[in-house]
């Protein structure tokens, strides 16, 4: 009986194990690796990836995919920078507009997917090109962000001791994760995403609000992509139309490594958090190593992804056997 319960959680347990393994290896091999500062940096450097990965978890669990996220990050960043730099819009207002537009962008994609029954892959591919193009329309070059309010946000942070410091961007990441966990486990919206991803036909016949949930999922993800754009522009103090090309694939990798099934219907926000941290950890590891080129990060991620996909395949087969 116990075994059944665990079966569902094996991908998550595997994720945690991989994280601990890399962390342990790093700590043994390199001094300073095992420090609060390195750990907190994982949250800082990956805040924008993490914020989207949470949204992407919902999208993938509901049986969809969103390829537009990287472009939306760039669009939101460059748009906010442009508004502040060229038109003197107050940062808070500029950021809020970007978040609203991001949500709207996601909602439109969700509506297309639901009402016209178009495949999410195609709709969001179109969204990806569109948002990237719009970003270039806003500006061809990077725009610096300099504003006392922005500086105040960037400088704001909680000192944690041991020379570690938790800035606003990392706090946003953590907050989004907590909200994600709440939505996923304690709201009908969250539970309905599982039902839709597992069997849409059954979800319809069970009388669940399939259309509304789907649209909401993409709206939520669009909002989080724009939020990630804001986080990214705070992180780099600029808006850049070529930012985050290919980010969507990193995000999907983080979600899958975090134990979410690409076919939908199964996964956890908490797993995604660890998936994101694993990606960050690999990067840190290679930085500490010093001689390897940073492209090794991609190779390791590729290998990990492969292992996890094999694991999922094996588990879903074993599940069907029972």
């Amino acid at each position: 009986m116990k075994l059944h319960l665990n079966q569902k959680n094996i991908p998550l347990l595997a994720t945690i194990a991989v994280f601990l393994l890399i962390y342990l290896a790093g700590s043994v091999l390199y001094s300073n690796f095992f420090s609060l500062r390195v750990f907190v940096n994982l949250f800082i450097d990956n805040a924008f990836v993490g914020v989207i990965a949470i949204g992407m978890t919902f999208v993938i669990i509901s049986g969809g995919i969103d390829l537009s996220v990287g472009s939306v990050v760039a669009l939101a960043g460059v748009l906010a920078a442009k508004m502040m730099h060229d038109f003197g819009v107050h940062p808070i207002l500029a950021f809020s507009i970007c978040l609203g537009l991001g949500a709207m962008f996601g909602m439109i994609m969700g509506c297309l997917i639901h009402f016209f029954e178009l495949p999410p892959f195609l709709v969001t591919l179109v969204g990806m090109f569109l948002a990237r193009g719009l970003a270039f329309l806003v500006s061809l070059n990077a725009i610096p962000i300099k504003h006392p309010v922005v500086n105040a946000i960037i400088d704001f942070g909680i000192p944690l001791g041991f020379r570690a410091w938790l800035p606003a961007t990392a706090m946003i990441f953590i907050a989004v994760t907590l909200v994600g966990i709440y939505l996923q486990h304690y709201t009908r919206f969250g539970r309905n995403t599982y039902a839709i991803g597992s069997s849409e036909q059954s979800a319809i016949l069970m009388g669940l609000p399939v259309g509304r949930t789907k649209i909401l999922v993409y709206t939520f993800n669009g909002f989080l992509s724009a939020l990630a754009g804001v986080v990214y522009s705070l992180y780099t103090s600029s808006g850049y139309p070529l930012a985050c090309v290919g980010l969507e694939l990193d995000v999907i990798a983080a979600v899958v490594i975090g134990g979410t099934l690409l076919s939908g219907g199964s996964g956890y926000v908490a797993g995604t958090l660890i998936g994101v941290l694993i990606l960050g950890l690999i990067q840190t590891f290679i930085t500490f190593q010093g001689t390897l080129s940073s492209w090794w990060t991609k190779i390791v991620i590729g290998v990990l992804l492969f292992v996890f996909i094999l694991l999922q395949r094996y588990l879903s087969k074993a599940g069907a056997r029972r």
Partner: protein
Amino acid sequence: MDQNNVLIDIKRVSKAFPGVLALDQVNLCLRGGEVHGLMGENGAGKSTLIKVLTGLYPRDTGEILFEGEPFSLSSPQEAADHGLSTLYQEINLIPALSVAENIYIGREPMRFGRIDWKQINGDASLAIRKLDLDIDVTQPVSSYSVAIQQLVAITRALEISAKVLILDEPTSSLDLAEVAQLFKVIRKLKEDGIGILFVTHFIDQVYEITDRITVLRNGAFIGEYETQKLPRIELIAHMLGKDPETFSLEQTAGKTQQEKTKTGQTLLDVKQLERKGSMMAFDLTINKGEVLGLAGLLGSGRTEIARLLFGIDRSHKGTILLDGEETVISSPRKAISHLFAFCPENRKEEGIIEDLTVRENIILALQARQGIFRPLSGRRQSEIADKYIELLDIKTPSDSQAVKNLSGGNQQKVIIARWLATEPRFLILDEPTRGIDVGAKAEIQKLILGLSEDGLAILFISSELEEVIACCDRIAVLRDRKILSELSGEAIEETNIMQVIASKDVNQ
């Protein structure tokens, strides 16, 4: 007739699909406090009527009144909001979610802005007890058998406090005790004034539980009758559109075929086969030209035996002799290459490929055995498909219709056709007549007897004892994942089987 009490009044509703007029001017009047049977052959339009009523399909013409008011729904979600609780024919649950969540999803109790999981799990364990079910409600629903899944789906429908309860073939996978328990609950709801629409192919159940019956045939409304005043033979005649006299003749013709002489050559000799956790060690011989039945309650190990013999599950111990030679059947592919065929009980998940056409579904297993590099010609495919469409009387506008558009019973026939098309030496049928109407059932039983006369070895699994008795030459009786004894010849009798199942401690 009490006019005030009418809950749902369906008037002259029609619905056409490309190539099929599924409903043609159908009427149905459901009153509060009654159980209303909806009867008809496979493809008569019963499920379609329910789907039109609950807003899954728009109707073409006609009118529906709900408590006297015109009523039109655009989705099952709205139906639930209006107090219609529906169990659709194909069990619709979310496999990966827990039993408890499947019962309450969409209506989860909230507390302080969050789903109250404690209450869900607590309520669910109480709710399933109403149907005498005692399982761990926190486990994923997919880890339970089809029968339990059906009970969970029924529980979900019962838990929605509704004015109208619609049950489309709720009992197809259940055993007698479970049906009895369900009927107890239904009677209670009926006393509370709820209107219940009940679809089934089991004539006995209709007479046990319903007050009125509406009969459909080929999409047309045949009539509404009071159950007490409608003799069985007439009901069947209405459903099939045949004269009662010709029909009763056919029935007796089916019976006489039973007497046949066997050439009992052994095909399979199973020795001490065992799979830990699913089936205890058992011996079984299966002879050519013989129908071997497996009888026993649900969960007694019937399906497990079938899965072991077909290589879906691997055995841990024991041997299988095929034509006297030891053979390891390690996968369904191996089994198919030995000319085995397996018609599974869970057609939605294991059998039918919904988006393929009838023809493609029928030739699938045959093609798999031939290998993809030797495709059957288009003409040959159509020939085979058409042969079985005719033989099994599959109702479809053409062999290029997508299988998901067929009625439930006709989908079942397509699966049987798929395995017959491979012309196997050994055929395993797990609940082949589930959801199949009386006429087709008799046809399939006749077909089984005919096939075994041609030398085919058949393993026949069914929850309906009568059917096992009618078809089988020998019967192995199971209980608790163990073969208790084997009956053959004169000993095959309902009381004998029941006695074996009920007997205590035979193992000592």
